[in-house]
């Protein structure tokens, strides 16, 4: 303003004649004429339909098998047993038998599934301490208030890992058996490498101590195990000492809270180095030996085992291909109607007025 006044003259206050100030910036006004809109519609329709078909074919080549074992087969008795919390410490094993009709080709993933388990409750989800899980010594003994009320056990010791999420960790374990003519054999599963790389290596670390010679049990000394747990965190995997503590992969998988109340979580991946599983899971009879610990009766939940192969864009899910097809068809339909009207009423807009 001050400058404008400085160059006084007869037209000193005349506004600049720039395109911006006069609101005359070169602009593109999308003109929605039949000639521009229709090709666009047809193009969209074709893209969507083609993509949909392709996705549909891809999905058809994947396999999935769900086995609900909540009280199937011999698990019925375990289900009854878990109704009573007093029996929590008694182990219960059961077996569920199933049959695979077509060979699961490719990588086969072994999931456990929970139905009606709300891992996405706000208070539940918040009830964890990432600082503790990342191995901060301060948080190990002094968990965050977010873990309330699962901070201290009844002895007053800080719980590690604290919080409701860890407390409610799924603790069934499975052994998948393949029954062929050559006899029964355990299907080999990778129980490691089932987590996100960043989880295993960044988000979850065991507490770091100066003295490298200390065992994990000593590191966790002075902490209590979560209320519902049968074993302490440093003893989760009795077969692999490096899979214990906070970096236990089952724990890490569990800690990645599911989005929906019905979810599955990865338990293992088929080890295809061993015959006859090099191609995937062959067709035949299978059984799962289950160490049945996790009670679901309280929330009317169900448990299942899921075997699945995946495509390049995810598991067996027909929704996306169908969505593409439907959308594509809708656009096509609209385009056809528009074309028909356009054709009927002539290409000249004036005709419409008559």
């Amino acid at each position, binding site marked *: 303003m001050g400058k404008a006044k400085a160059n006084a003259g007869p*037209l000193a206050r005349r506004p600049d004649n720039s395109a911006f100030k006069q609101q005359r910036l070169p602009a593109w006004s999308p*003109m929605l004429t039949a000639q521009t809109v229709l090709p666009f519609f047809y193009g969209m329709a074709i893209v969507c339909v083609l993509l949909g078909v392709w996705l549909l074919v891809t999905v058809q080549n994947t396999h999935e098998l769900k086995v609900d074992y909540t009280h199937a087969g011999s698990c019925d008795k375990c289900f009854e047993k878990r109704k009573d919390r007093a029996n929590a410490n008694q182990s219960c094993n059961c077996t569920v038998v199933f049959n695979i009709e077509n060979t699961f080709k490719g990588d086969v993933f072994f999931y456990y599934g929970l139905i009606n388990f709300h891992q996405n409750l706000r208070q539940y989800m918040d*009830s964890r301490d990432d600082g503790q899980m990342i191995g901060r010594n301060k948080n190990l003994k002094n968990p965050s208030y977010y873990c309330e*009320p699962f901070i201290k056990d009844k002895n007053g010791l800080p719980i590690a890992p604290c919080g*409701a999420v860890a407390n409610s960790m799924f603790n069934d374990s499975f052994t998948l058996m393949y029954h062929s003519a050559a006899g029964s054999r355990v299907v080999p599963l990778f129980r490691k490498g089932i987590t996100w790389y960043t989880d295993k290596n960044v*988000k979850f670390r065991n507490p770091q101590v100066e003295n490298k010679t200390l065992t994990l049990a000593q590191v966790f000394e002075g902490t209590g195990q979560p209320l519902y747990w049968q074993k302490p965190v440093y003893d989760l995997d009795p077969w692999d000492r490096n899979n214990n503590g906070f970096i236990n992969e089952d724990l890490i998988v569990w800690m990645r809270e599911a989005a*929906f*109340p019905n979810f599955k979580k990865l338990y293992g991946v088929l080890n295809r180095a061993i015959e006859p599983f090099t191609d995937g899971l062959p067709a035949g009879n299978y059984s799962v030996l289950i160490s049945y610990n996790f009670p679901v009766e309280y*929330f009317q939940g169900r448990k299942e085992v899921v075997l699945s192969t995946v495509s390049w864009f995810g598991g067996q899910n027909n929704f996306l291909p169908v969505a593409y097809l439907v959308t594509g068809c809708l656009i096509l339909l609209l385009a056809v109607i528009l074309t028909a*009207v356009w054709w009927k009423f002539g290409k000249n807009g004036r005709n419409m007025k008559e």
Partner: protein
Amino acid sequence: SNWPCKPTPTVRKQNKGDDSPQKKIHYSDNEIKTTKYTLLSFLPKNLFEQFHRFANVYFVFIALLNFVPVCNAFQPQLALAPVVFILSVTAIKDLWEDYRRHRSDKEINHMDCLVYSRYKHQYMERFWKEARVGDFIRLRCNEILPADVLLLSSSDPDRLVHIETATLDGETNLKQRRVVCSFLDLDCDFDPSKYNSVIECEKPNNDLARFRGYITHRSGRRDGLYKDNLLLRGCTIRNTEECVGIVIYAGHETKAMLNNNGPRYKRSKLEKQMNVDVGWCVIILLVMCLFSAIGHGLWMYQYGDKRPVFDVLSPEGAELSPVLSAIYLFLTMIIVFQVLIPVSLFVSIEIVKICQVYFIHQDQDLYDEETDSHLQCRALNITEDLGQMQYIFSDKTGTLTENKMVFRRCTVAGVEYSHDANGETILSQMTFKRFHSQSLSQLPSDLTDIIDFFIALTICNTVVVSSPNQPRQKVGTDSGPRWKIGTEGSPVLRKLRQVVGSGRSRLTGESWLTGGSGRSWLTGGSGRSWLTGGSWLTGGSGCSGCSMQTGSSGCSMQTEPGALEEGELRYEAESPDEAALVYAARAYKCSLVGRLPDQVTVELPDLGKLSFELLHTLGFDSTRKRMSVVVRHPLTDQITVYTKGADSVIMDLITLPSTDDSKGKRQRKILYKTQNYLNLYAADGLRTLCIAKKVMTKEEYAVWLRHHLEAETAIQGREELLFQSALRLEINLHLLGATGVEDRLQDGVPETIASLRKAGLQIWVLTGDKQETAINIAYACKLLEPDDEIITLNADSQVRSSHSTLTLRSFQKDYAPAYSFPPPPPSPSSSQTQSFLVHRLGLVIDGRTLAYALDSSLDEKFLQVARSCRSVLCCRSTPLQKSMVVKLVRNKLKVMTLAIGDGANDVSMIQVADVGVGISGQEGMQAVMASDFALPRFRNLQKLLLVHGHWCYSRLANMILYFFYKNAMFVALIFWYQFYCGFSGSAMIDQWYLIFFNLMFSAFPQLITGTLDKDVSSETLQELPQLYMNGQNSEEYKPYMFWMTMIDAFYQSLVCFFIPYFAYADSDVDLLTWGTPITTLALFTILIHLGLETKTWTWMNWVSITFSVGLFFTVALCYNASCPTCYSPSNPYWTMQRLLREPLFYLLCVITPVAALLPRLVRGRCVSVYESENVWDVHVCSRPHSEMLNTTGVVDLTVKC
């Protein structure tokens, strides 16, 4: 409003003379501080101000709610972010504005002035801010006054100072101020050290036109102080070498500062409507929260006593009852859903409005080269109201017309003279008298009337004479040239003067003689022809007059008026009418050559210079509608009153002569004729004034004078007493004649009115002028068509006016079949259509009838009648009536009103209307000061309303709707999720995205679109004013549109929620890995939605959208990579990085926006085309060819849909 002017503690009491005042009263110093804040007070004060806005309180409440553990939803610190952001954006804006004020303050405070130092006994250069009350200040010509100063001394021999008050009221004519009377006779220089008086005056107030006080001298003498003695801060000294004054009011107590109140705050119609919908949003929010709370309670209840393993107990370990947890959840949900109430909406609207104001400012079409002025937006927040106007109330003079007055005709003593053709008629008569060389009193009465008429034209005003060669230099009287400093005693010059003076007087006489009947100066009708025709200019002494000026370079000699450059004299008048009359009189050789407070000098052709002793000036006021001067006639020595005023008033004051004698009959005839001519003038659209005179006997005068002096010296109710005194004087007048002054229409007025009318605007003209004049102007500017039926309402009493209204009603009924007159419509919106059906009626109402019509018993009827008419003219209306009419229409019809005017009499109307527009024209700045928008010309109104108004409205309306859509769509996503998480208040959208989505990721494109989008081009809007009705009927933002928007938002959010839901169902996806794509999809959908709404794409739109998307991914990637533990309770570590590697993410990004926006794409086209179909016909007929293509394309689709 009267402060008692007594020496009570409340009154300013100033002691001067001795350095130690007995009683210290705090006076503000001259440092001005218009800043609102100091460094210390900024934060608390600004926050306090911001919390006056309800929305801010609400957001702070929500942020604080987050600190309550049972219902916290986000990281509490993070939840503060939006509030802090909003508050700080506003605070930064305030701070910047304040800083600018501070800078200008500093500049002003550090200007220099000469202040008398009591210790050094001389004037010292000081900063303005160092001047104190009681300081003596010396001011030189063209200096600006640093404070309100009481004038004590002036170098002017008449002890006058001329000031220009343009900065105060915009009036450019010079005003005279005089030295306090006690110092009048001070011959030598004023010596401050000898000053020894006490000044008492009223408390500081903002009344520019009033100042009262006393000065008490040590001798005990007391003199009154008047506004004539006060020089106001901000004015400029003109025509005066030097003056000295004492500071009375300093700094913020000066009248200029007290008058300075910042921009006005108004709330626009759109904003009011928006606030209603914000209210609805609150209700929707509460419903959603309640729904969730009940859902949560039920969900808890279904588990009964068996608590599921994932149910988290309260920190105390106690189990929460379903009811209690439902209550907690309700609060939590308010936090989670807070985005539904658009936090950033208010800030965004402010930003967009500032940009709109900027663009309106910059528009070259609203710039007037002649006056070098452009549009000023004085109210920053009602730009969109410009697009919704329904009624325009316009002043006539200066608004529709130029207010450049040209004298056209006059009638004197019943004889009519036209200025152009018959000029000689009067003059030849006037010259006649020269040969009679009789005293004036013995001349025939019509001749004296002519002379008196011109004398009245010349002196009955407040015109100041100046010379254009030395602008702003006062032209003195015939007392001879006045020498400036250093030339005072120059004998050469004095001698020269004598030569010139004598030469003039001699030659003047000669020219008469040589000219015989004086034709030489008559023919041209201008002073110059006389001068050139005369011989003496070529003579030696005339020449020496010229060379004298050049020779005495450096000592600027003031020109002697009437001698050398008489034709160049300029008159500075308060109103253009006055100037026109004085110029006209000069054209007839009756020129005003000088004006002093107590003397007016007039040069008459044969009589030479006559000095009238000016006894009183009774200024013009709008109640009396006249002004008078009381003079002592130099020839007859009679006390004569000359009165000039509106014909309606003057005619009533004329003494009706008796019908007995012939003289009386003749008088009556003259009266009758004059009245006829007046009507004729008015019919020609001229402004009429009557001139009258009265001769007082010494006794009459003495009686009146006594009362008048009492009134003048009265302390209380002085104005009222003076008014009464004037009334007493202005009676029994003798009519001299009347004048007709033409006021030309401004350029483009008829076109503007026609196009505004096409735009569905009702135009009412409210004027103080005569009915005939007004009607004539109305015809001239196409407000009335020749074949219009005109209803005139003139009534003397309420009963009669009521009666006439009733007749009018029946008249309507009579006409009903012929003109298909519809019944008064129930809603204002349909009144537009009605106004098109009834286009044969014009209503004219005069001020007196208007007073009855505005009465509460009749106003409904009046309105009904007025609404049925195409145009309404209110004549002879007072400023108050003008504002009452506006108020009545605004309140009763519930319409948007715009008042436009240029003078002080329009101020009240401008203030009452929804939008007040001032014309920065001839009559000062009062109207502009009161207005929301100030225009250089009336025709600018067309672009301002039709283009900028339309744009501002449609941009803002669309932006508001878009805001509601955006927030509702985003929040609904979370709401749907509640069905899958036991109504626990979880959000799959990470808290950061949730909070910054509105503030950052989606904020910029909509600001760009809201600022730059043009739904229709400027050319088309001006060619098709009908498009303006779009805004009048609020078609861009109707109440149902809010709900349509909401439904659309819910649909889109359903798509954006369920496509990812089903795509990820049955998988091992975790919450944030699923929620982040939803956020992305929502962003894409929202941006593409905006893209569909954007009619014109400039590079800025592209940049802003690219920026938004880029910003989102950058922030997401950085946020997800930065810290695995910092953002508890959520932990999105590496989520985005992983998602970007998943094909599924991209597949979703393609399908979801398409599916979400497909209905809108199709339906939106249909609706918009359907709506514009009305305009289609016109489009096709009158649109430029290039735009035709566009239209036909759009229409294509209509049919298809």
